[in-house]
């Protein structure tokens, strides 16, 4: 049976679970957003390099 009433200990129990959820949420969001940001940056720089090195073959497959 699910027991979600910690009685007089609620003032300690819920902050513990709340802070855990916040910190874990921060870990997930920070990890994913950082990975996404750097992946996009690599894609942007690779596209820029391709255009600089082979501007005349921009729409053709790269060697």
């Amino acid at each position, binding site marked *: *049976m699910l027991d*979600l009433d910690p009685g007089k*200990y609620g003032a300690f129990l819920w902050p513990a679970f709340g802070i855990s959820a916040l910190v874990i949420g*921060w*870990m997930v969001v920070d990890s994913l957003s950082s*990975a996404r940001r750097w992946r996009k*940056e*690599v894609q942007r720089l690779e596209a820029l390099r391709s255009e600089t090195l082979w501007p005349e073959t921009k729409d053709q497959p790269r060697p």
Partner: protein
Amino acid sequence: MFQALANPQRFMDFSRWAAPLVGIKAVILIAIGLWLTFTAPEDYQQGDTVRMMFIHVPAAYMAMFCYACLGGASFMGLVFRHSLADAAGRACAPLGAGFTFLALITGSLWGRPMWGTWWVWDARMTSVLVLFLLYIGYMALQAAIDDEVKAARAASILALVGLINLPIIKFSVDWWNTLHQPASVFRAGGPTMPAAYLWPLAFMALGYMALFGSLWMVRVRSEVWRKRANGLALQAAG
């Protein structure tokens, strides 16, 4: 397997599918663990605060496990100059700091109603606080030195020196008189907890471990991309 994954491209191919898979496992394990947490009976002494054990103890395990990984990565980086080792260390540190912070905060929130105090400078709590400061020091050192190679070397030495803190944390409750209770799961003679408390603890601990594994892979991928982006930016500037 570790040698195969030390190759960045092979690691990127492996982690592309492994990170989300392990992440899904983490969500399932933590969901089951939370269900068991809130269906476990109240403890006759601790009452409902016993449920905090199922988030506090796994966080404390992970605080130490992440540091062991950080130490291992630092050793590999310093001795074998593995290309991914520094990235692995940098990826460990914020996650380890997060878990250590959680162990300290949830322990404090449990201690107030059970011990009558938020904090005491006993050996276990002080050594865990030192662990948190070691994580912060590692990240600060990485950020403070512009030359990435020198920064990685300095931070790795700090991480290796800090490894001495792990046995101190583990055995602090045996070596000194502490307010913190001694080991009740990993001890000679088996756990002292009933199964009703061991199951939620086991699921939450495995869930936290899987969460770390998944996020660690994501962060190493991020580090690989960051280094690649820095290389491309240098090429573009030159």
